[in-house]
C-alpha cells in the first residue's frame, strides 16, 4: 500500500494503518540508526523514538514528499542528538556485540572494523549521504531532501565521501 493511502487511513483513525506503517519502515530506520550509532540497543531505542515522535506530531505532518524520508529526517536528528550527548563508543564494544550476534569469525569482525572505522573518519554530512545511498538504497533526490541540501551539494558530498572512503579502505588493504 502506498504511503499516501496509509496516511489517509491513519488520519481517519485506523489504528491498523499505523501498525502497517511501522512494520513497513521499522527495519529500514533501524538499519540506518544502527549504522549511525554502531550499537543495537541505541539503534532500537532511536527507531522507537522516531516512530513515537512521528505519532505525537502527526498533525503537523503534511503529505508532501515521501513518508519514509520524513522518518529518516527524524531518525537522523535523533541520532545527532544522541551522539552529541554520548562520548564515542570504543570499537571493542562493537566487536563484542557483533561477535555475540553473528558468529562468523574474526575475519568478518575485522572487515566490519575497518569499514566502520573508515566511515567514522568521514565528515558527518558525507557519512550520512553514503549511508543513505549505499545501505538504504535511496535516490539522490530523496537524500537531498532528507539532509536538507541541494541536489548538487548532495552529489558533491557523495563524491567526496567516496573518494575519502576509497583512500581509507585502500590503505587498510595495503596494511
Amino acid at each position: 500500500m502506498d504511503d499516501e493511502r496509509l496516511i489517509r487511513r491513519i488520519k481517519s483513525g485506523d489504528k491498523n494503518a499505523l501498525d502497517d506503517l511501522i512494520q513497513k519502515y521499522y527495519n529500514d530506520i533501524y538499519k540506518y540508526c544502527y549504522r549511525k550509532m554502531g550499537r543495537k540497543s541505541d539503534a532500537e531505542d532511536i527507531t522507537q523514538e522516531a516512530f513515537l515522535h512521528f505519532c505525537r506530531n502527526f498533525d503537523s505532518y503534511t503529505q508532501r514528499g515521501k513518508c519514509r524520508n520524513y522518518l529518516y529526517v527524524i531518525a537522523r536528528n535523533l541520532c545527532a542528538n544522541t551522539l552529541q550527548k554520548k562520548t564515542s563508543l570504543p570499537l571493542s564494544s562493537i566487536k563484542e556485540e557483533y561477535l555475540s550476534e553473528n558468529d562468523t569469525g574474526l575475519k568478518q569482525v575485522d572487515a566490519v572494523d575497518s569499514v566502520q572505522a573508515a566511515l567514522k573518519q568521514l565528515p558527518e554530512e558525507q557519512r550520512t549521504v553514503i549511508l543513505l545511498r549505499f545501505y538504504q538504497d535511496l535516490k539522490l533526490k530523496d537524500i537531498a531532501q532528507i539532509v536538507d541540501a541541494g541536489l548538487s551539494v548532495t552529489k558533491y558530498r557523495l563524491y567526496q565521501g567516496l573518494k575519502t572512503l576509497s583512500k581509507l579502505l585502500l590503505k587498510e588493504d595495503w596494511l
Partner: protein
Amino acid sequence: MKINERKIREDLASFSVPAYDPEKMRETVQLAKAAYRERQFAARIGFWEFLSMQLRFIGKWVWLAQVVLLLSVLLAVSRRSFAVNEMQHVFLVFSCAVPLLAFLGFPEILKSYAHGMAEIEGCTRFSMRKLMGARMLILGLADLCCMTVILAASAARSGTPVLRMILYLFVPFNVTCCGCLTVLEHVKSRQGGYFCAAVCVLCIAVFSQLSFVKGFYETAATGMWIVLFFCSLAYFATELFRAFRSFDRLFCSKQETLSVPW
C-alpha cells in the same frame, strides 16, 4: 584518483546489521498507538471549531421557533403602514415578541441542568463555563440577527428614528434577559425553565400594558428610555458575570484538559 565504486560497495556490504528484536518492534507499535491516542486528546482546537461543535448541540426547535417568531413579527409589522403618531400597534408587537425572543434560548441553556447532565458535562472535555458561554454566544448572536431584521423592517415601515427604535427593542430584551439570568444563577434545575417562562410572561404583560400608555413612547420620554437602556445593560452585564461565576463555583474551578483560546 579514480573511484572504484564496485569495490567500495563490496567493502561496505561487509558491514551488515544484526536483526532487530521483534519484541522491541511490537513494543514500538503499542507505544506509537498510545502516543497517537494521546495526541488526539491533547490537541488544541480553535475557537470557531469549538463554536461550530456546540452549534450542533443546540436543538432545532430553537431555530424553528425563532424563524416562526421573526416571520410573525415581520408579518404583523408589515400589514399596514403607520403614521408616526400611530405606533401603538408596533410597540405592542415589540412588547410581546421581544421578551419571547429573549426567552427562547434559555430552556436550551438550562438543558444540561434540566436533564441532569451538568455533572457529566462538568467533568468531561470542556468546562461548564465554556460550554455555557458558547451556547449563550450562539443564541445571543441569533437573537441579535433577529432583532436587526425586526428593527430594519419596523424602522422602514414607520419612519421612526432608528435610535429610538433600538431603545424600544433593546430595553424589553435586556430586562427579560436579566430576569432569566437571575433565575439561571439561582435555580439550576428543571424548575429554572418554568421560572424563566414566568419572567417572560411578566415582561410581556408589563411592556404590553406600557405600550397602551401613549406618553411613554413619545419623543419627550426618550431620555427616560436612554436611562432605562443603560441601567438594563449594566444589570445585564452584571448578571452575565454572576451567572458565569456560578458555573465556576458549582464545579470547583476544574482544571481543564483542553483549553480553547477565547
